[in-house]
């Protein structure tokens, strides 16, 4: 932290020259640069280390860490497939649920809408574990116990405050005239929603989809509690097992490869969809 303060002090301030203290200012600036460097190493270093370590074996480049990861447990393919099932269902359902609900909240007045909205926001207040123990029993009763579909449904519920809020804001920012024009053209409300308004709220929908993807791809506690068969495990669950399964004998090479595989799609999406990221933070985190 002191490094940051120093950087501020050392930054050029032409409006207030400090005569006779040039050497002190120079020393402070060097210290500030060192501080910034330390920060960059702290935040970027671990990521570089894990990528580097994942492709090294016994002092040379090799893919053996990855091949050991591919054959770990039930096989990386199974874990990726399971994770993909959860991700796809979570993303598709989150979009469907939030687009329709967001439209209703933004454009229609109906009795009970306030209660429903507050109910959805209340999900934010409840710690996930408090819900997971009853969900473990309840999902089993309704035939969704120990299933990827059940995990995905729970993820849709966790995401709902963010996704509904996001879509409501998106629809609210679309001018009503756009829709009214479509109505005059003879569209029913449903087809006007799809053809005219949906392209206008596409950025919001991309943000909802992105955050649903990240949440489902990375979720650990929900599958940990709801899934009991090893062949249904998602990637994070399998990777934690790789660390905790074999009585302290950890295959660190495979672990590093696993961390890279697990982080890569998220990093890639970040660079492709930076706008959607910023959109999500400013609309969801700050106003929510």
């Amino acid at each position, binding site marked *: 932290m002191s490094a940051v303060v120093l950087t501020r002090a050392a930054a050029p301030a032409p409006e207030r020259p400090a005569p006779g203290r040039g050497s002190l200012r120079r020393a402070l600036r060097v210290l500030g640069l060192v501080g910034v460097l330390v920060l960059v190493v702290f935040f970027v270093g671990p990521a570089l280390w894990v990528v580097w370590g994942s492709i090294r074996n016994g002092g040379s480049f090799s893919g053996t860490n990855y091949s050991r990861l591919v054959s770990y447990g039930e096989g990386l393919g199974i874990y990726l497939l399971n994770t993909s099932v959860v991700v796809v269902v979570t993303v598709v359902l989150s979009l469907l649920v939030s687009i329709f609900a967001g439209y209703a909240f933004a454009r229609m007045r109906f009795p009970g809408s306030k209660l429903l909205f507050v109910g959805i926001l209340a999900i934010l207040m409840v710690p996930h574990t408090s819900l997971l*123990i009853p969900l473990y029993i309840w999902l089993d009763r309704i035939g969704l116990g120990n299933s990827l579909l059940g995990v995905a449904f729970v993820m849709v*519920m966790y995401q709902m405050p963010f996704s509904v809020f996001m879509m409501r804001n998106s629809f609210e920012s679309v001018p009503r005239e756009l829709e009214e024009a479509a109505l005059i053209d003879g569209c029913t409300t449903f087809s006007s929603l799809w053809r005219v308004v949906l392209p206008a709220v596409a950025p919001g929908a991309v943000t909802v989809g992105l955050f649903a993807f990240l949440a489902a791809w*990375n979720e650990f506690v929900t599958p940990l509690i709801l899934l009991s068969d090893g062949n249904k495990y998602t990637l994070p669950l399998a990777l934690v097992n790789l660390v905790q399964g074999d009585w302290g004998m950890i295959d660190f090479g495979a672990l590093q490869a696993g*961390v890279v595989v*697990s982080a890569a799609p998220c990093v890639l999406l970040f660079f492709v969809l930076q706008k959607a990221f910023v959109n999500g*933070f400013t609309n969801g985190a*700050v106003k929510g």
Partner: protein
Amino acid sequence: MTTTGAVAPPRRSALRSSRASTARSRRAAWRAWLYAAPATAVLLVLFVVPLGLAIWMSLFDWPLLGRAPELNFPENYTSIPDNELFMRAVGFTVRYTVIIAVVLLVLSLGLALLIQESKRRSSGVLRTAFFLPVVTGLTTAALLFVGLLSPSAGPIDDVLGWFGVQVDFLGDPTMAMVSTVVMMTWRFAGFYMVIMLTGLQAIPTELYEAAALDGASRWRSLRSVTIPLLRPTLALSAVLIVTGGLVAFEQFYVLTRGGPDNSTVTMVMTIFREAFSQFHLGAAAALSVVVLLGLVLLNVLQLRLVREDDGAAS
């Protein structure tokens, strides 16, 4: 799109009889509920029912498998003070929350100021560098640090070795806490930095200019302009960090496994153990109801504080 310029139709409702308009508004309400139906179904089936079931289960001696649940209220609640692991976990979780809140708030504000003050080109690079860990999952981050901090695979042990220093990052209670805080800082500082930057951008530059004209130093204008005007943002960040800290689970489950000697067991971890190691689902439900009530109370209190801050700022 070709008709965007068309004149809006005259309001027809005034011309119709009131009966027709109630029928229409009823139809409209129906349609609205149809649109909201999927969200309502998810809310009821996956949130309201489990929440009710949690309260219901907490009244019973509810084993994980085998025999039927038996009503034993209020034993699940009255036995909580005797649950030594849980009571110790409350203290530990609160301590962790305070530490992580202070560290994250100070560091993320510092990072945001650094970005705001740096030149345009470098600020973009720095922002990306600080933000990158945020996009990885929490479990992924914890697994990364398991390797990074391990004496056999990680580089840190080697580097410290050059200076003849040896640190057991996860084997000592204090160091286990410090290691977890460092990992969480790595993962989350960029997130709160972005929130702080949004808050900083909302502060009008004229205020800084006025402060500079008055001869205020940079430190003084940080203290008298930035921090007071940033209070709503700081309060919101604090709410998010405190709530996250009190329900901490993954970071300790993966990194320290609650050890050494149960010194880093959090509240949520004890709920998990009660349910899936002790098989006492009823007792676990009671613990989660208590944690839930505590959190809701705290959230209401904190949100009220944020609201007051909002009022003061605008």
